[in-house]
C-alpha cells in the first residue's frame, strides 16, 4: 500500500525522468544555487584568473586589456619582505591560537557538560564574547592592554616595555590570546554537542576498571570527541588565516612595524588601497593553498582512520 501512495499512478514525463520525482525541489533551491554560484563559485574562479593576469581597477563598463602574465603577480608579491613577514606572523598566531583553543575548549566543555548548578549562567558567560562584535571587544582590549591600562597596573614591574600591543615581540601573541578568548565559546559549543554522543556506559566501565577522572578523560573523552577535534582544528585554522579586524584595529594596522600584519591585511593594503588587486589575489591563492595543506596535515594526524 505504501508504495501505491508514494507513487500514485500517473504518466511519467520526460522532465520527471531527468529532474527527479519532485522537480519542484530544483525550483525551491534555485535562489540558493544562484547565490552560491554568484557569490562563491564564480568569484573563486575569477580570483585565480585575476592572479595570473595584469589586472587593475577601471571605471564600470570600461573594457580594459588584461594580458596573461603567468607567475609575475606571485613573484611581485613574494619578493616583498612585508608579505613574507605577514605569513610568518600568521604562523606564530596559529601556533599559539590553535593548540590553546583545542585544549581549553575541550577542558571547559567537559567541565560544563557535568556541572549541575549555574549551568545556564556558566554557558552564557563563555558564549558572550563569541556573539559580540570583534570591533566592540577590540575597544575593551585596547583599554585593558594599553600602556597604563588595567593589565599593566596589575602586573606592575612585570609589564612588558613597550606595552603589549606596541611591542614587536608581544603584539602577535596578544592578538592570538585575544582571538582565542573571543572565539572559545563557539568551540565549547561544538565540543558540548560531541560530548552528548559519548555513551555514559563507557565512563561507567572505565570507572569500574579503576580509571580516575584524568585517566578516563584521556581514554574515553579525547578519543570520543575526535571528529569534533578535527572540525575545531579546521575551523580555527581557517578563522586564523582570515585574521584582519584584530591587526587592523588592535595594533593600528599591523604594527609595530609590520610585526602583527596578517596576509589579509596586506591584501587589503595592496589590493584596495594601492590598486594592485592582481597581487592581492595571488597572495590570497597562496594563503588558501597553505591553509588546505595545513588542514590536510591536521586531518592526517588528528583524524585517525575514520
Amino acid at each position, binding site marked *: 500500500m505504501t508504495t501505491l501512495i508514494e507513487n500514485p499512478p500517473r504518466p511519467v514525463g520526460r522532465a520527471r525522468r531527468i529532474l527527479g520525482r519532485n*522537480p519542484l525541489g530544483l525550483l525551491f533551491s534555485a535562489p540558493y544555487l544562484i547565490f552560491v554560484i554568484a557569490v562563491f563559485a564564480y568569484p573563486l574562479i575569477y580570483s585565480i584568473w585575476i592572479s595570473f593576469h595584469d589586472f587593475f581597477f577601471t571605471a564600470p563598463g570600461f573594457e580594459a586589456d588584461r594580458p596573461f602574465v603567468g607567475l609575475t603577480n606571485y613573484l611581485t608579491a613574494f619578493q616583498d619582505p612585508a608579505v613574507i613577514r605577514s605569513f610568518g606572523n600568521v604562523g606564530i598566531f596559529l601556533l599559539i591560537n590553535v593548540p590553546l583553543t583545542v585544549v581549553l575548549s575541550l577542558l571547559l566543555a567537559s*567541565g560544563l557538560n557535568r556541572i549541575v548548578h549555574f549551568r545556564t549562567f*556558566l554557558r*552564557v*558567560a563563555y558564549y558572550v564574547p563569541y556573539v559580540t*562584535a570583534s*570591533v*566592540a571587544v577590540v*575597544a575593551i582590549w585596547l583599554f585593558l592592554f594599553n600602556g597604563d591600562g588595567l593589565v599593566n597596573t596589575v602586573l606592575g614591574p612585570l609589564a612588558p616595555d613597550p606595552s603589549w600591543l606596541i611591542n614587536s615581540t608581544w603584539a602577535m601573541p596578544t592578538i592570538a590570546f585575544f582571538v582565542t578568548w573571543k572565539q572559545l565559546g563557539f568551540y565549547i559549543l561544538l565540543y558540548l554537542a560531541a560530548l552528548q554522543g559519548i555513551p555514559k556506559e563507557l565512563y561507567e566501565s572505565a570507572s569500574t576498571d579503576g580509571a580516575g577522572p584524568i585517566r578516563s578523560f584521556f581514554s574515553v573523552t579525547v578519543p570520543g570527541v575526535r571528529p569534533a577535534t578535527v572540525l575545531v582544528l579546521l575551523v580555527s585554522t581557517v578563522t586564523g588565516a582570515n585574521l584582519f579586524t584584530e591587526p587592523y584595529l588592535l595594533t593600528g594596522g599591523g604594527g609595530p612595524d609590520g610585526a602583527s600584519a596578517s596576509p589579509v591585511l596586506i591584501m587589503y593594503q595592496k589590493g584596495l588601497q594601492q590598486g594592485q588587486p592582481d597581487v592581492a589575489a595571488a597572495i590570497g591563492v597562496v594563503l*588558501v593553498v597553505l591553509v588546505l595543506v595545513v588542514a590536510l596535515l591536521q586531518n592526517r594526524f588528528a583524524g585517525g582512520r575514520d
Partner: protein
Amino acid sequence: MSRFQKILRGVVLFIGAVAFLFPFYYMIIGSLQTAPDPTIAGAFPNPSNITGENYTAINDRINLFQGLLNSGIFTGGVLLGTLVFGVLVGYALAVLQWRGRGVTFALALLVQVVPFQLLMVPLYVLIARDYGLSDNYLGMILPFAINSTAVIIFRQYFLQLPKELFEAARIDGAGEFAVLRRIALPLVRPALITVVLLTFIGPWNEFLWPFLITKEAGLQPLAVSLANYISNVAATAANPFGATLAGAAVLAGPVVILFIVFQRYFISTDIGSGVKG
C-alpha cells in the same frame, strides 16, 4: 569523582566565567567614567566619576542611531534572505526527491569552509566595480544573503518530521508550497529562532566586507563607523577610551541582550549538526 574534585571543578569554571565576563563589565564601567581610571580602584563604580557624557561624545562624532539603523537594515536583509530562501532549500533537501539534491547539500557544506580572504578581491571587483553597488545596502547584503549553516539546520529539522504528514496533505490535494507553509513550517518554529539568532550575529558583527564596500559615513553599519572612530578620530577626543567604550556598549548591547533572552535556543546539538552536516 570525589566531592573535593567536584567543588574544584565548579570553582575553576566559575573563575573562568568571571574572566570571560569581566571585560564586558569593564566596558560598562569605562564607558561611564568622566576620566579614564586604569587603577584597580577604577574597576569598581565610583559615584564621583560617573557621567553619561561619553555617550553624547561618541554620538557627536558618529551618528549612533544612523549606525544602528544601518546595522539593522544590513542584518534584516540577511535574515529575510536566509529565512525565505533558506527554508525553501532546506525543505527541498529534506523532503523532496530531485536530481541535484546531493550536489546542493554538498555545496552547502563546502561553502562554509571557503575562506573569505580568497573572495575579497573578486567580490569587491564584481560588486563595487562591475555592478556599481558600493555605498548601497544591496551590495552590503549580497555576499551574506543566504546563510549556509541555516540551510543545514533547516534541513536537519525538516528531516525529523514524519513523512506521513506530508503524504496525507498531498493526498488531500495540497500543493507542495502549501504543504511547506501550512504543515512543515509551523512544526519547525524552534529552528526558526535558532536560525535567527545564529544568522543575526554574522552581519551585525561583520566588519571587513561592509568596511570595504561603504565609504559614505551615512551608510556605514555601527561596527564600521566605530572602527573608523577607533583608527582615525579617537586620538583627538577628550576622553577617547570613554567614548570608544560607550560606542562599543551600544554595538554589543543588542546582540548580548538578544542572546541572553533566547539563550535556550542557542543549543549545542543544533548548531553542532549545522556545522558538521
